[in-house]
């Protein structure tokens, strides 16, 4: 290469002054955090989803810190909305249902996060790698995936639960959804197969970028809407599986407080058959449905966050000029 003499070519240009780092980071923050958030809350579903999730997080942190552990009291099976001291009533042992629900939240949230993150990570790594690499690697990985899919999930989980008796919420989350990443990774793989036909992937390969970098920068961002929806679904699967398994009493319940356990206790003390105790089992159910619905709404709205058109429109650092072009285009 011989452009050393005379005028520097644009290629040899270096900065005349330091770009202010704060400016740069402010812009990154704007594009990656502020703009997506704005898109999310500009949508009713997103607002509801984010609101619900924040509410539960609040409950599980500040709420736990503010309130006492539920204890047995003399008021047994108090119906809700009767006593200001126990707004949601009490259970058979006289413990406050509201407090029970609040103090179950941290366990639920940790379990959900553990299970969902584990599933998505496995699925994304295996699915995208197999899809992008193709050939032998793909065949090998997909054979394993197919074998996992072929194992019936429920019996496996029950067996594992009985053997390991997990009590740590994160471990519980992982155990109860152990094989479900396999189906997801297969679905992701086929998405990758279609993304990888784009010529920008070939361009990146021509530039000699390493596989991990191509996956991270070129492939996964394009699958994000899909991954988000599946993340939400995985989270919901953790909730339902845990509630179901605790309710059935498959998982160890002693010393653990979560919504499934509450329902299990309520059931075992016969509250399914009398109306007086119905609140004891219905209230945790409402929590389950609410959180699950909030997650669905969040997932649907998150779809929009990954739409570059919307993202560009909501970034404030975008110049007037660009904004106008945008307008003219639409």
């Amino acid at each position: 290469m011989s452009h050393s003499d005379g005028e520097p070519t644009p290629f040899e240009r270096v900065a005349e002054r330091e770009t202010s780092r704060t400016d740069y980071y402010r812009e990154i923050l704007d594009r990656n955090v502020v703009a997506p958030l704005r898109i999310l809350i500009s949508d009713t579903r997103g607002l509801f989803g984010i609101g619900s999730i924040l509410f539960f997080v609040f409950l599980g942190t500040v709420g736990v810190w503010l309130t006492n552990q539920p204890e047995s009291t003399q008021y047994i099976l108090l119906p809700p909305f009767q006593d200001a001291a126990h707004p949601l009533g009490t259970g058979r042992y006289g413990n406050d249902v509201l407090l029970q629900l609040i103090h179950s939240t941290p366990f639920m949230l940790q379990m959900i996060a553990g299970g969902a993150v584990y599933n998505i990570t496995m699925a994304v790594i295996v699915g995208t790698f197999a899809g992008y690499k193709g050939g032998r690697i793909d065949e090998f990985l997909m054979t394993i995936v197919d074998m996992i899919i072929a194992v019936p999930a429920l019996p496996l989980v029950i067996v594992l639960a009985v053997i390991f008796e997990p009590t740590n919420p994160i471990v519980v989350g992982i155990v109860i959804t152990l094989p479900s990443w396999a189906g997801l990774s297969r679905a992701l793989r086929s998405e990758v197969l279609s993304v990888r036909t784009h010529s920008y992937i070939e361009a990146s390969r021509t530039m000699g970028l390493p596989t991990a970098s191509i996956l991270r920068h070129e492939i996964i961002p394009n699958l994000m809407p899909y991954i988000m929806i599946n993340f939400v679904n995985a989270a919901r699967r953790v909730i339902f599986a845990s509630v179901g398994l605790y309710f059935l009493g498959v998982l160890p319940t002693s010393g653990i407080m979560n919504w499934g356990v509450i329902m299990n206790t309520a059931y075992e003390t016969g509250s399914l058959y009398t109306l007086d105790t119905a609140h004891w089992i219905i209230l945790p159910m409402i929590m389950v449905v609410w959180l699950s619905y909030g997650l669905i709404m969040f997932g649907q709205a998150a779809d929009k966050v990954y739409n570059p058109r919307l993202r560009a429109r909501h970034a404030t650092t975008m110049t007037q000029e660009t904004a106008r072009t945008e307008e003219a285009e639409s």
Partner: protein
Amino acid sequence: MKERLHDKSNAQQTQDPIYQVRNVSVAFDMDRGTSRVLDDIDLDIERGEILGVVGESGSGKSMFADSLLNAVVSPGQLGGEVIYNTEDGQSVDVTELTDEELRKFRWQEASMVFQGAQDSFNPTRKIRTHFVETLDAHDADIEDGMDRARELLSDLYLEPDQVLNSYPHELSGGMKQRTLIALSMLLDPEVIVMDEPTAALDLLMQQSIVRLIREIKGKYDVTIIFITHDLPLLAELADRLAVMYAFEFVEIGLTDGILEEPSHPYTRALLNSTPNIFAPVEDMTAIEGSAPDPVNVPTGCSYHPRCPMATDACVESDPGYYETNANHGVKCHYWEDVDNAIPLQVTADETRQVDVPAYGPVAMGTDRTPVLTLDDAEVHFESSQGLFAEPDAVRAVDGISLDIYENEVIALIGESGCGKTTLGKTAIGLQRPTGGSVSFRGQDIWDAKDGHGDVEIPHEAIRQSLQIIHQDPGSAINPNRTVRHTLELPLKHYNDELDMGDRQARILGMLETVGMTPPEDYADRYPHQLSGGEKQRVTLIRALLMEPDLILADEAISALDVSLRVEMMDLMLDLQEIFDTAFLFISHDFSNARYITEKSGGRIGVMYLGEIVEIGTVDEIINNPKHPYTKSLVWATPDLDETGENEDVPLRKIDIPDARNPPSGCRFHTRCPEARETCARKKPVLVGDGGNTHEVSCFRDVPNHEYWDSPELMNDEPSDETPTEK
């Protein structure tokens, strides 16, 4: 003085009009207002003529086709009268027909051939079924009908039985399009409306089909309305031309009249912007501005925002048709002055000297070292047909040797499926050759990658030196990332001594260099906020940021508008000078290949079925083509001045043989008009005539070869070819 015709009819002297189109408009109601995609059209179509309708995309030309058959889809509203006159003197208004009458009318009186034959056939049914069903639906005699179908197919250079027994996917694009023409003529219609029937095909195929359409028209006595954006194509086909702009015809006249004395500024601009193989490259100019929006057509003359001659009068009053002579009408107030105001630039001068290249050195001396060397490179793809069949090898690249020198521009041309893209990708190390070798400055690329032997240049460095620009700018940049982010990645990877500020400065500097200003604004855009040309610039920058020694431009400008192509090629050449790179430019278009190689003093290589059949400088290839295939490609490239109505297709067959089973001997012998018996047995090699850059692979270039004594090859030799899939 100017003579104004009765208001706005352009009814020229037609003796026996088959169509009389009166006040026809098509409107769509949209949120933004009424969208008029056809604006009060009057036109007579003479029985038995070929009328060429030319216009840019979005000018309303397809709507015109639809309205002739009353096939405007709702919610479009068709207004006005479309009078159709049958041969025995009856007149019907097509817009008034009932559904049942229309159904009959559409196949028996007027039929239509759309672009994209792909979608016109049901992929699960054989071609024969399509013919039989059409006959059946119109209660025609099946046996007579199929006889006619066979005749039509063979008139279109197809083998009737083979085609009828195929499924649509087994036919090549050109075959499908011809089959569709045959199908449209099955019920002996009087009129055929063809809407861009050749748009997706190679030039050679386009030209061949155009010839066949002329022949067929003579034989079957039909009227043809041929709609296209491609003016040169019509030059050789149409009797009359109608130029469409902003949803109306701005100029109508005999083809010769329009080409020789175009009287509307738009027609002139269109002619001047058309790349022409023989016109001096400096003379091609783009049309400024863009076509109007159907909701907001400019007042007065709709062309005034783009017209260099526009006056206040043009803004205020809509010009009617002025008659320049009995056969030529034009919608422009100042048509008499256009000659001086907008000179025509197309001059054909075949003996013209090739200009001294504006860039780079002329070809090469032997002392220069090549950047890249292909030595007898082969790429054979296995294509297995089902589980138990023997896998067929597609010989995409078959024994090609080529040296690419420092700063050289080489253009590879050939029809689709000839292997030029595979060759390009092999050259830059994206495709591993199945035979032969590819080396970069003497280092075998794949040895470097695998770590075989002494690796002098590490693979990483080679990888960086060979870059690519893709055909479709839409798919070449990640839609989820800003321009800045896209360009940062290669810099981060290869230039880690640059800090963040330097990277930014470099990216902005590059954006500015390619004319994307203000660069700060462009850097933060997402791809959807860029035009096609701008996206292509970003991919060009991305490739250049790697400081490559060779860039493969794979049909890099084909997806751009014609008027943008010249600009993009200029930019590539400008940057080439700054950055010292060689270009391997792949194109199916001779005009583009010529433009870029002529300006840079490069070479053109002609590929046919995996082989290079001729290579040389622009002058050698364009003005002195030696290989019969090159000659046919030159023939097929639009040349406005050569009317050549009686010139036959310079090929014995118009379809490319199957690459899985290439012909013996000279691969071109099945289509070569000069083929002799030797050609079917022996294979010519690519040779030059001593110290020259011009190399040809044809026996005709070898004096005293046994070719000259061998008998001519018979046309009807049995052929074992199966149709190609491409």
